[in-house]
């Protein structure tokens, strides 16, 4: 549901953020126009948002996911004080919450059901009131990881996207979006029950960048 909102808001908002340049160790402004141009030119997102193994010193166990909405990174902790880092897109108003959850279930090419408010105001969404089957145009993308708090679905998901150039921006409405290749990769590496830590900085504070 939260993911569904992403489709409409991504058209209306121009989100600004920053990209980390590992060579210069500097952060550079990154906005919607730059993101779109970059993707058109390179057919991929800037280097810092691509999947990569990074040094990551932590007391968390391998297999734990750490989401840093402010810097638009998702870390999957690996043995040997390393992590696989993926670029993510988050909500225009930030992720909206922080804390410790877990992967409650996962789905491949999930069905997307738009929320009723969206069905009421958007004729495109109305078409899918009973659910849009999974596929390349589906806003949830190739995989969805459903975040649970205890046994309860939080309604938040980590999911793929048909708009890969939006990785690194604050454009969705609370969910974590990743490129389809990345979410397929992450899905293949995690186990249901994996601990997910959502950090509280920046994007998590309802403010966005």
């Amino acid at each position, binding site marked *: 549901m939260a993911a569904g909102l992403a489709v409409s808001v991504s058209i209306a908002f121009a989100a600004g953020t920053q990209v980390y340049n590992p060579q210069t160790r500097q952060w550079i402004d990154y906005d919607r126009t730059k993101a779109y141009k970059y993707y058109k030119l390179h057919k991929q997102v800037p280097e810092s948002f691509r999947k990569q193994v990074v040094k990551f*010193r*932590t007391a968390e166990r391998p297999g734990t996911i*750490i989401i840093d909405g402010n810097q638009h990174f998702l870390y999957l902790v690996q043995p040997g004080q390393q992590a696989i880092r993926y670029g993510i897109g988050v909500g225009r108003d930030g992720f909206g919450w922080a804390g410790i959850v877990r992967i409650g279930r996962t789905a491949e090419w999930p069905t997307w059901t738009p929320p009723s408010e969206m069905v009421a105001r958007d004729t495109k969404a109305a078409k899918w009131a009973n659910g849009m089957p999974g596929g390349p145009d589906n806003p949830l993308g190739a995989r969805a990881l459903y975040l649970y708090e205890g046994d309860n679905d939080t309604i938040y998901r980590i999911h793929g996207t048909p708009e890969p150039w939006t990785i690194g921006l604050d454009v969705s409405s609370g969910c974590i979006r990743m490129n389809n290749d990345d979410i397929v990769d992450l899905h293949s590496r995690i186990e249901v029950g994996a601990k997910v830590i959502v950090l509280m900085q920046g994007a998590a504070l309802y403010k966005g960048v």
Partner: protein
Amino acid sequence: MTARRSFRRLILATTTVMLSVGAHAADLVIAMPNWSSGEATANILKVSLKKEFGLDADAVPMGTLIAFAGLNTGEVDIHPEVWLPNLDNLVKKYVTDAGTVAISPMGVPAWQGICATSVAADKYGIKNISDLSDPKKTASLDTDGDGKGEMWIGAETWSSTTIERIRANSYGYARTMRLLEMPEDVGMAAVDAAEATDRPMVFGCYAPHVVFKLHDIVRLTEPPFDAAKWKIVLPSEDPSSWLSKSSAAVGWDTAHYHIAYANALREKHPEVARFLDRIDFKPEEAIDMSYALQVERQDPYKFAEQWVAKNEDRVNGWAKP
């Protein structure tokens, strides 16, 4: 530090399932806490007691309250980490009043305060508590664009978190910083993520703690503890005006943790009581113990065997008649 840890440990004490300690043939029973330095110490004692005195000891997981009850009745012989002044009430009950439990005179000093990553200290000049009231410096800690920096001050459930809020108010940085309350794992993962990308971060912290070995962490300097300036009114005491009635613009008082043992041990095994009274772990050693178990996930018993082998002279010194 103490308020927080005491809270956490009291919870542990009430929830940990006590294993049966009466059904085995070991010479001694060591209460084993479920935090990493306590677990390591319990195993170091187990290995040392065998090596020095040929005594078999069982390290049995149990919470602090149950351990003290066991020390009182003689079902438990040793507790490796008793925090003072956190557990002053238990010390009064069992050590002072009942006289059934003894506390080793050697304590490991523990510290609590505000920490900064080295980037925050070196690049943005945040080294003293007063720097948190300088908006030019705290702008570097702003992650949501509202002009205020953000800092994690502890978990919602810790009593120390309330005191950190009082301190922020008293020092004045409550105006320049947004104080965040979240479980410790979230706060520590935020430090990990900040360090991974060279971002500055400031946070509430305590030592011994593995964060000091995981990362290059700077403790902010501040005026030393002064009991006359430490005026804490907790929300439970005055729900509406605890903050305005409180004032604490000084550092935390130092806490210590000690080994405790059943007084009966002085007669049953006087050599063991003497040994325990001499053990002098250092805060850095406690960090190493926590790191080995919590980060490297070493087996506690194997770690203890290596520790005792590496510190053989010292352990022998503790055991000397």
